[in-house]
């Protein structure tokens, strides 16, 4: 545990973490005012890869904007596709065939596992363990190969269409995914032995990086950060969309609110995603993957619309304002790590810098999604 210390304002110095720092996993800068090894104050500086995606939405037609979704969160691009498809389908009242819904869920959950694997590997690497990264990337590679065969891309997917999908899955994908599930269950056990139970890891994480429920509410934290603080909140459950109500899965919640709790939430989530994929493959209906009736030109009626999905990092919401034209009048992208990272400034005060970086890793940052 970090000893409570009295910080002296008059003996501080400024330390820049980033914008080119391996622990921030991208171009994020944190301006830290330090009292020795302890953080007196931290100010996160964003915007190094700001690309103004929201303005692009106003200059492009609705289908043209779909590829932007993959560029927001390069690790769980599929969920972002889903969120955007949902809001446009809601606005234009487009029905999605059942087979397409199931395939959406399968691909989103595979992508969630891939995203958590990158986080796990990189996080343990941050903490000084190199080997798990190799295993994680090996497993992730298998998911990427599966998804590449159906979507045509490895990271920045543009797989969803309004009302359906770009491409149907084939038998190779189904057998490949089933084989992956069997394989990955074994791997998860191996990760539990290799990483989760490791004494050094526990010492680094347990009791560090406290985030309580009130802090989550004030900052709007969602996803594994909220669930690691005892908040049972998962958009898939609280605000069911797509065919998620058809599946039996649990939402892992840990009450400790420390970095270790957030770690455990993600480890447990990978197992639950496997369960969802398994059930979806069992129930996968036949039929078309695109609706028979679909407007040729997407022109949502005037008004504003909202849709939210659960990405690997939390609640991704889109607020879309339409004036009835071909382009959106306003597109607000509410990304999860934006809110999750914001609480870092407050929560890291008084922490040792080494613990703060372990805390930052447990928030699972993806910078392009924060900067948009």
């Amino acid at each position, binding site marked *: 545990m970090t000893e409570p210390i009295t910080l002296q304002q008059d003996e501080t110095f400024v330390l820049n973490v980033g914008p080119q720092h391996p622990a921030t996993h991208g171009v994020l800068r944190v301006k830290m005012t330090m009292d020795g090894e302890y953080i007196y104050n931290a100010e996160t500086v964003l915007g190094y890869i700001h690309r103004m995606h929201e303005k692009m939405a106003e200059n492009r037609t609705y289908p043209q904007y779909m590829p932007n979704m993959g560029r927001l969160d390069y690790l769980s691009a599929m969920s972002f596709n889903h969120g955007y498809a949902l809001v446009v389908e809601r606005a234009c009242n487009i029905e999605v065939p059942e087979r397409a819904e199931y395939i959406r869920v399968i691909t989103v959950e595979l992508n969630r596992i891939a995203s958590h694997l990158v986080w796990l590997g990189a996080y343990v690497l941050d903490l000084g363990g190199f080997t798990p990264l190799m295993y994680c990337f090996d497993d992730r590679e298998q998911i990427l190969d599966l998804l590449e065969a159906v979507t045509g891309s490895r990271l920045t997917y543009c797989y969803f269409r309004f009302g359906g999908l770009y491409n149907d899955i084939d038998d190779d994908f189904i057998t490949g995914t089933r084989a992956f599930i069997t394989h990955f269950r074994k791997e998860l056990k191996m990760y539990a032995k290799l990483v989760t139970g490791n004494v050094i890891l526990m010492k680094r994480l347990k009791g560090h990086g406290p985030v309580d429920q009130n802090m989550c509410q*004030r900052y709007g934290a969602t996803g594994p950060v909220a669930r690691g603080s005892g908040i049972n909140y998962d958009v898939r459950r609280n605000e069911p969309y797509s065919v998620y109500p058809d599946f039996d899965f649990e939402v892992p919640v840990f009450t400790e609110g420390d970095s270790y709790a957030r770690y455990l939430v993600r480890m447990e989530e990978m197992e639950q995603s496997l369960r969802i994929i398994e059930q979806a493959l069992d129930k996968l209906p036949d039929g078309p993957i695109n609706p028979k009736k679909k407007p040729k030109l997407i022109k949502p009626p*005037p008004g504003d619309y909202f849709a939210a999905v659960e990405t690997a990092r939390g*609640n991704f919401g889109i607020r879309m304002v339409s004036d009835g034209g071909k382009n959106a009048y306003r597109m607000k992208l509410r990304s999860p790590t934006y809110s999750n990272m914001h609480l870092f400034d407050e929560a890291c005060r008084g922490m040792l810098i080494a613990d703060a970086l372990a805390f930052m890793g447990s928030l699972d940052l993806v910078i392009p999604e924060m900067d948009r």
Partner: protein
Amino acid sequence: MNIQDKTREALSTLFADMPSPEPETDDGEEGEEKPEIRGNGILEQDYHAKGFHLDVQLEPNQLIEAVRIIYDLGYYLESITGVDWIKEEQLEVVYDFSRYDFDLCRTVVRTRIPRTEPHLPTITPIYTGASWHERETHDFFGIVFDGHPHLVPLLLPEDADFHPLLKDFKA
């Protein structure tokens, strides 16, 4: 009483001396014409069509009180954003709130300010996390949140003096 009724009731104290607005008809058959600017008040929306439940429009000076009520009811702040209604010479600021529990009720609070004098009180004393959202809205729309502790550009460069999401912005 479910949370939607509870929230509506708590917020309706703000509009005590105003007649309640006519509920919006959900078929958007009006077609080409822009819908009229709606008056202040609370609307209950069809969640499946819109994606949110309660839609509150209020005066800028009622904002703090409304956000306080919403905070006390346990909502978390999802986002803050602006919309530039250039034809009406107004900027709209939209606050999205949602809940962690299973009483699903998405609440939207919106207020309109003149384009020439875009000032709003900050809600950072209530929702600390509003800080970045307000800075972002300041970046993109030039809206000044009075009382904000650190209203400097967040996503734009630190010397940015342009507001790209305004409809009359030319690159």
